[in-house]
Every structure is written in C-alpha cells, then in structure tokens.
C-alpha cells in the first residue's frame, strides 16, 4: 500500500495543479513578497487575471467601485484575499467531473469544499471576530487529500466509498484500512509542501480528529464546525457521510447556539453570493 508521500509524489508528477497557482501560493506565503512580483506572476496567465478581476468584482466582496487591475485589487481586498481567489481558481479545475459520479462526485466535493471555506470564513469573522482569510483557505483545502486519492489510487478510493457505512466506523478508518493512508494526512503533506501557514496545515490535518482538546476558535475547530454545519445542509463531501463532532465543539456550539443559528441563517445567502468564486466557467 502506498504511503501518503508516495501518493503525493505521484500526484505532483501528473502536474494536475496549474504551475502559476503553485508558484503564487508560494509567493503569498512569503511575508516579503512584493505586490509587483505577485502581479507579474499573475500576469503570466491572462485568463487568471480575467477570472480574478471577475471574482473581485463579484457581490461576495461587495466593492462599490469596479476594480480593473490586479494591483488595485490587492490594494482593495488585500493580498490574502487575493491569494484565496488565486488558490480557489487554481484548484477548481481538478474538481472537474470524474468517472464514478454515482459513487463519488468530484463536483459534489467541490461544492462541499467551497461551502466549508465560506462557512469557515464566516465563523472566523462573525463569531470570533477575526480575519477569515486563513480559515477560508483551510476550509477550501481541507478535503484536497480526497482528490489526490481519487487521482492516484482511484480503484482503492472507489472501494472505500462503496464499503463506507454511516455510523459504523469513521470514514478515515475505511481509508486507512483500504488505501493505507487518509485524506487528512495527504492534505497535510500538500499544505506543508506549499508552505501554507502552520495553522492552515494543522486545520487540514485535524479536521476529522475527535479526541483530545480542540479549541473552537482554532482553524481546526472552525473547519470542523463548518464541515459539520455544511454537511447538515447537505453539501456533503461523500454521500451518506456521517460526521462526528468532537465533544469540546459540541459543547461550545450548544452554549453559543444562538450565534451559530444566526450565522447559519445567512450562510445560504453568502454561498449564492460567492458563486462567482467557486462555480466553473459557463455554469
């Protein structure tokens, strides 16, 4: 059975992710990256520029004035937001329809990821009052390991999906038994490789962890919460996916029920506003 590293290596060899997106992710994670460098990199891919500007000008950001250049976009929404758009746009392609839609739908997974990303950002900003850019990034990437599995070891992964029985064992348990690793581990390695911020890495690694202490305001806590809420809204990663919330989080949500309810109330609206961000071209 392949290790997570081997799978990731194979995945990278297939060059599924656009070069520019990768390069940009690295540029952004570097504190000292200048806007000019960033802009230069983006300009290498003219379709990317068009998409970015379209997203920036979408209702999601609610800008009053239209932005017509990347440098202006940076000035208006900030580097991190722009990074998120770049990453989103960059990885969107790998979630194109796969061959086993009835068992596992990549498109379905993409909607899930986008929703978790947006929800994470909302939780971070509206409940904890903190900038939600990293939460969004962590959310949109939390299940990227699944894509790797589906890309590199499709037969095994389909098997996992077929064997999965809700309420019996957690999903990751099935993955470990059949594939030898799970999407959390793979996703974590990828985040490490892209040099994403440390808490984003942790959030991806621990988003299915139920034991031990989990701080609700940590990215792990936020993404788990968002994952839970979004799955309840039927934006599920895998059909029939049953999620277990860690105990700490359950208590926290119960104690702050009104907050979460209020936030969740606005979630569908946010998702529809962000359609420009995660929907594929022509959809």
């Amino acid at each position, binding site marked *: 059975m392949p290790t997570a590293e081997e799978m990731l290596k194979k995945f990278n060899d297939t060059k599924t992710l656009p070069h520019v997106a990768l390069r940009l992710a690295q540029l952004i994670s570097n504190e000292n990256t200048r806007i000019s460098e960033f802009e230069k990199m983006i300009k290498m891919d003219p379709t990317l520029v068009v998409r970015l500007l379209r997203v920036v000008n979408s209702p999601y950001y609610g800008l009053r004035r239209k932005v017509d250049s990347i440098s202006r976009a940076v*000035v208006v929404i900030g580097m991190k937001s722009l990074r998120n758009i770049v990453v989103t746009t960059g990885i969107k392609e790998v979630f194109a329809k796969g061959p086993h839609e009835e068992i596992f739908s990549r498109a379905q997974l993409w909607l899930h990821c986008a929703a978790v990303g947006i929800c994470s950002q909302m939780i971070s900003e509206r409940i904890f009052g903190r900038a939600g850019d990293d939460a969004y990034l962590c959310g949109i990437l939390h299940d990227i390991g699944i894509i790797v599995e589906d890309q590199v070891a499709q037969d095994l992964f389909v098997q996992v999906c077929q064997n999965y029985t809700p309420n019996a064992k957690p999903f990751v348990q099935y993955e470990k038994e059949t594939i030898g690793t799970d999407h959390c581990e793979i996703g974590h390695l990828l985040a490490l490789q892209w040099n994403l911020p440390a808490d984003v890495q942790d959030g991806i690694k621990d988003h299915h962890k139920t034991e031990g202490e989990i701080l609700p305001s940590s990215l792990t806590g936020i993404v788990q919460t968002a994952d839970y809420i979004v799955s309840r809204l039927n934006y599920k990663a895998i059909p029939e996916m049953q999620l277990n919330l860690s105990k700490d989080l359950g208590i926290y949500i119960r104690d702050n029920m009104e907050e979460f309810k209020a936030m969740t109330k606005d979630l569908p609206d946010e998702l529809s506003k962000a359609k420009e961000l995660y929907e594929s071209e022509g959809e």
Partner: protein
Amino acid sequence: MEFIEDIFSEIDDREEDLHQLVALLKKYLPDGSFQLVLNSGKSVSSGDKLDLSRESCDKLIDMAIKENGLIHHELHKTRLMHAMLIKELDATLIFVLPTQDPDSVLKNYGLSDVKLCIELFNSQKAHLEEQDLRKIQKRQINRKVKVLENKYNEILSDNLKANEELREHSRLQQKILDTAATAILTTDAQGRITTANEEFCSSTGFSKDDVIGKHRDTLSDRSCKTDCSLFKADEKQQIIKKRCTIRTKDDRELIVIKNAGTIYDRSGRFSGGVESFIDVTDLVKAREAAEAANIVKMEFLTNMSHEIRTPLNGIIGMAELAFDTNLDDEQKNMFYTINNEASSLLDIINTILDFSKNNAEKTELEEIPFNLRILTEDIAQSFAYRAEQKELHFVSYLTPEVPTQLMGDPGRLRQILVNLAGNALKFTEEGEIYIKGEVAEDHKDWVKVRFLVKDTGIGIPKDKQSIIFECFTQADGSTTRKYGGTGLGTTISKQLAEMMGGEIGVEGEEGMGSTFWFTAVFNKQKGHVAVQKKDKISLKDLRVLVVDDNQTNQFVLTEYLKSWGCRTETCSGKDALSVLRESVLSEEPFNLILTDFHLPEVTGFDMAKEIKKMETLAKIPIIVITSIGKIGDAKSCRDIGIDGYLAKPIKQDDLRKVIESVLGFSKEENPKGQNLVTRHTIVEDNRKEVQILLVEDYPTNQKLAMKHLQTAGYQVDLADNGQQAVEAFKRKQHDLILMDIQMPVMGGYEATKAIRNLEIELSKIGDKKDSAKSEKIPIIAMTVHALKGYKEKCLEAGMDDYLTKPFRRKELLDIVEKWSRSRSIKGKQLPTRLGLCSGENVEFKEADAKKSAIDSAEPFDPELTAEGLVAGQNPKSKTDKANAPINFEKAIAEFDGDKEFFIGVLEGFFENVRGQIETLRQAVSDGDADLVRREAHSIKGGAANLTADELSQIAFKLENIGQSEVLEEGFEFIGRLEKEFQRLEAYASNDKTA
C-alpha cells in the same frame, strides 16, 4: 428557522423552554397539573408529576402526534387526561384540569385557557427569538465590520508603506540624477523636456525652468529624430550612443557624447525619452591640438634633419677635400676627426629621420628581388673589420633551408641587421657576435625568416627588456653617455620588423649577453629555381678536416660543408697534426684541410708549414681562414704552400669557390681524383643576379637611374662619389659600374683608374692562370660632355663604354644589358678579394694624386655643348611649347609613364635647386669658382633630365662662368637661374593641379 432547528437538533437543549411554558400555564391556570415531554427520546420532562406510567405517557404522546393537536383520553376510566402536541418545541403537553360542574356555562373553559397560554407562550418565544436573532446578527455584523476595519487598516498601512518606499525610491533617483557627473534630461512623447539634472544646468548654463517644457530640439541645430534616430518606434529598449552637439544658453556649441533611450509605458506606448551626455568639447579640442602638434613635431623633426644634413654634407665634403691639400700629420688627423664626427652626426640624423618617417607612417617598403645570402654576408663583411679591431669573432650563418632568392626591401632588412649587429658590437668587449638566419615558416609563395643576433656583451636586465624597443630608451640612461647613440636603433628596427610582417624581441640576462631576434616575411621570387648547385663540381664525400678552436666557427664551417655532402671531422689546433698522421694510415685520408689562422697555440701558417714538411701530408690542400687585415703578406702564404685563403666572415659561396679552385689545382696530384670534375662556369643570364654599382652624386639623377634599373629587375648599389665607388668595389663583387664623371671627393676618371689598378694588383696576387682581362669589370661612363674626343678620353681612363646624359631609359637599359651579358663569368676568384684589403691605402693615394690632372684636362666649349643639348634633346619643345619651362609629356614618358614617381623626382630636384641657388650666391661672393662650376653643372644635368631646357641652358652658362674663374657675371646669371626656376616651379604647381 425550521431547517436551522433541524441542524442543531442533536445539540440543542430545550429544557429551559419547557420550564418556561409550564410556568406560564401554572401562572394562568393554577389549578391544572401540567407535564411537558419532548417527543424525541420522550424522556426529558418538566412540570408536575402526573404519576403516569411510561406506557401511558407514550400512548398519550403518540395519540397527540397522530391527532396533530389536542386529544382527550380517560385513563383507567377514572382520569380524564389531555394531551397536546406543541410543534414549536417538538414536545407534548400532558395535563389534567380541575373537575368542573358539568352543567356550567363555562364548559371547556380550562382547555381554551391552555390553548391560549400555549399560543401566548409561542408568540412570546418567537418574539424573543426574533429579538435575540436581531441582537446576535447585529453583534456578528459588528464583529465582521471590525474584521474588515482591521483588514482595511492593514491594507492601508501596507499601501502607505509601499507609497513611502516609492517616495524613497524617487528621492533616491532624484539624488542620483543630481549627483550624476553626466547631464541628463528626459522628454515626453512630443520631445518636450520634462526633467533636467544639475549637471545639465551647469554644463549648458540653462536653469531647469529655462528648459522644462521646451522642445529638446531647441538645444541643437539638428533634430534628434534625424541626428540620433531617436524616437523611432523600432528602437525599443535600445540605447543609442552618438557623438553630437548641444547648444548652450550663451549660444556656444558643445561637442557631447550622448546616450539616448526611449521610454514606453505599461501598455507599451511610446511615452518619452532619456538623454544623458558628457561634454567632450575640451577633450576633442585637446586631442586635435595634440594631433596637430605631433604632426608639426614630426614635420619639424623631418625638416630639421634635412636642414642639418645639407650643411653637414658640406662639412664632410670640405673635410674630404681638405685631405687633398697640403696638410701636416696633425692637421690631417684633425680633418680625419672632423670627417668621422660629422659622419656619425649624419648617421644620427639619418636615424632620426627614419624614425620620424616611420612614426608618421610615411615609409613604404620596397618589393624588389634580392639575395638574402649575399645580403647577410655583405653585412658580416662590413662588420668584420670593426669586430676584428675589438678581437671579437664575427660569424654569420644562414641555414641551408632558408630560400635566398626573395622579394622584399633589402635596404630595410639590412638596416635592421646593421642596427642590431651594430649594437652587439658596441656593447660587446670580448667573445663573439653571431648572426643567424633560419626558417620560421615556409609556405609556397612566401617565407618567414627568423634572424638572431647573438652577442656575449653586457646584456640587458630582464626588467628592461620590454622597454628597449621604446623610443629613446636604452637599458640605462648611463649607457647613452657611455656608448653614445640615440637609442632609436632598436625602435626603428621594431617598426621595420613589424612593417615586414614580423616581430622583434630580446632574450638574455644582464652580464650574460643578449640575443636579439626578429622575424620578417618575404615573398619568394617567382619562377626561381635553386639551380646554382647544378652544373657545379660535386663535393660529395669529400673528406675535410676542420681545424678551429672556436665552436661557432667550427659549427658554421661544418654545416656549410655538410650541405655540399662533405664528410667532416673537426679538431683543435693542437690536435691537428696527430689527427692527420693517424688519417694517413686509415682507409680514408683527408682530401682537404680547413684551418683557422688564429689558433691558440700555433698559427695556421706554422701548422701549414709543419704539414707541408711531411711527405705523406704535403699533398693535401690547405685553406687558411684569416681575419681581414691580418694577412698582410699573401706571398708568404704561397711560399709556404698554402693553397687558398679566405677572409672572415666566411661566405658560403666564397668558401665553395675557394674549395673548388683549390681542388682544381691539385687535381692531377690528387691520388683518387674522386668526383672532382671540371670547373663549370655558370652562365649568368638572370638579371636578378646582376649587381650594378651606380656612381652618381646628384640625387635627382640617382633616383632616376635607380628607378630605371630596379624596374628592369637589376640589383643596384649606390655610390655617391668615386671614392665610395672604389670602396664598394673592394667590398662587394659587382657586375657593372655606371660611373658619373664629375663628382665631389673623387671624380669618375680617378675612380676608374683606381679600380683598374686594383684589378691589376688583384690579378697579381691571385691565381696566375686566370687572366686579368677576364676579371675586368665593365665601367660605363655617364657624362654630359657629348663631345667628340670624350669617348676616347673615357676609354683611355679605362672605361668600357659611355652614355650621354641626359639619357633615355632605353639607352640606359640597352647599354647595361649589353655589358652585363658580355660578362659571362660572374664573380671573381676568392684569393683575389683577399688581397684587396692590404692594398687599401696605396690605391687611394694614387687615385687622389691623379685627380687634379684629369679634372683640368676637361675641355671647354660652351656654345657647341649648349646647341647640342637643345637640338638633340628637345627639338619639339622649341616649336610647340616654346614658352613652357618644362615638357611634362615627354618627361613623364621618360619615366615610363610613372607620373607619381616623376613628381617625386621633380620635387626632389626643386628642393635641391633651392639650396643650390643659395650655395651659388655664397660661392660667387666667396669667389669660389670651382663650387660655382660644380653646382651649376649638377643643376644643368638635372634640369636636362627633366626636360627643363631653359633652366639647363642658364645653368650651363653659369657653369662656364665658374669654369672661367671670372665671376663678375655670376650674380646676374644666378638671378636669371632663379627667375627661370621660379617660373618652372609655378608652372609645375599649376600643371599638377590641372
């Protein structure tokens, strides 16, 4: 709201709600008993205990859910229970109301109250929740606003930082602009100046306000568009570098070196330009001035050298003339010294002249055929005497591989070799000087020869070796004082070697001697095949013993002999006899002995004597090699029985000839006879081999005759007067002498007589079998005296033919051809040459003594001569161009149509005559009739050659005045001469331009 309730149903805690509802019911219906049970799980309950069994409770709830509303059920037939589903709480209310009078009007009053209470509760709850939601939403929006605010502040501070960086950057740029030592300005797309830096202002005098907004073309006469091809769309990215001009505020024009580039904006549109320039006006002017100064300096040097040469020639000439007068020994010595010093001064001046010419790159190399072996051997010959005086060995050696029939400039090559050999001689006190030539590169049509001049002198320190070839540099300033010289010799040698396609260098160490080397490229003579070895006697397998203690000599002799196939053995002087004795007993006795005269323990003579005494060895021919001037007595050589003599430095051809001749004599006696066949004469039909000695004092005539002869392929050596001719005759074998009659120092008659006497002397010393007659060198007189009887006079003086000046080219070549062909045997026998040196002083005295007599014997007939000149030479000019002072067409035809050369000669002539007119004036006022005659004579000849007939005639008349020694009319004729000369000059300069 429902879906949200659903989402969090697993987690939500509703006990509180239940309590509140029960409390409300209790408040309004204090008599009732109420119990609330959650539908899911059915476990959590609140309110009064109704003492219901679990089954009863479940049954009631199920009924209520089924009914989706209120139900009544009589439990155990005794208790009327009510159950009501409350959707909002997902719970069921089970209650019992107090029993009422059945007949009461207010029937069911309790049930309505319950319903109302529940509705009230629900509406209160919804209201509260709505309120809470609003509150929480407001709170969350506030949080998000706070987040966005922070984010905005972050972005803002980032932007400020970036802005500050930009400003910093722009401040730095401004600082760079203002600090730059070059003027910088920028323009917009229309060419209007947008910025200018401090340097721009200080170099042009404009203030920034003066120029900003103005078009940049106002700064120069020509538009940059045309001048610098700036602002062209296709010049993107490129920086244009141009030298152009900029106009200053006070309307001066600056010469600037400018860099200019175009600026394009983000979208690639041309948006302006940057120009940066340095003012080089002063530099350009300084350079021009320096160049001009250098030209002036070189011209001055050239002119000065010319100017000094003229009086110097006078000094030398007069000193030489003074020898003819009655002088005591002390005076003679003084004149000798004057002559020597003047000659070395002349050498220095010539060197400087050469240097300045080379430096001005005015020197043009000749490309004429020459024989490299003869050239190097000649040089060795000329150095041999001086080397001998210092008791130095002087050896020249050309390796047999070196082709000898080459094309090039022998004069210049000679100059290098003489320079280097001269230096070697100057700086060497003991040991030897060795000139060697070898092949560096051999190609089909050309060869690169490497020459080495090696000495055992003071040497040059390593660190000075590189500067030795620079101008006016010797290794040490003090050497100049000690050894004299300009230090230009090596510089000129370098210039010349480089002009010949070669290099020069020096090796060696201080105190260890120096080896100067240089290379030069020569074309091979076309169609020349090395034939000289054919038809000659084979010297193959000849056994030769070389007795010499000097290694270099030994080596050179052995190499020469080996190249002819001889088998050689070498030994020192003291071993010679024993080696010879042993050889007698061996299978192969020696056929020939070559011995040096100067052996450390015994002289060559003494050894020869010993050998000749021994019967077994007496028949082996002996050739003694000796130094010039040492062998005073050739007779004693013959007495001893020495068969041949050879003077150092040894020439390969000479050695061969002596060997051939020596072996030829001993042919009968030679026991083996061997391969020694008869001596062949080589028919010399190759003009290139014909060496002509031209004896002529007048430069114009020199140039003329040289040009004609060299063009025809002859090798010409030049002698300026009779004495030089005699010297040249002694130094080198010529095939023909062209002899002017009237010359300073020694005239043509005297020189001829001296040469003829020498020849007689030589024939006596030399081989008796070779008749003196066959050795006579043809001497052709060149004279302006086209008179009857002159021919006889010439023949009487020992000349063979004569040529009337001015001669035509064809006449000259015909006569030369005639006499060089008739001379079938080239080269004289070697023992003869050896004798030349011993007779040196005697012949000079003889020749000098006869001089006056011959001069005075010249007849005088002015009219006849003048008419002859005019009628014979220029009948046409009299009719067609009677007024022209010169007939260009005719003259140029004489020069084979070579107009350029003709102009050169003409200019040379003009220069001479200018000086001569002054000389004539001085001579007339000094009463020097002879000088008047001679100067006039030379002008007459030169003018006639150039078809300047009028001038020639006036000069002729002046010559007669000089001849008559009555100088009263002298000034008048000089005036006429000058006038005619000026007319000629004016005519010539007009004609040249036309």
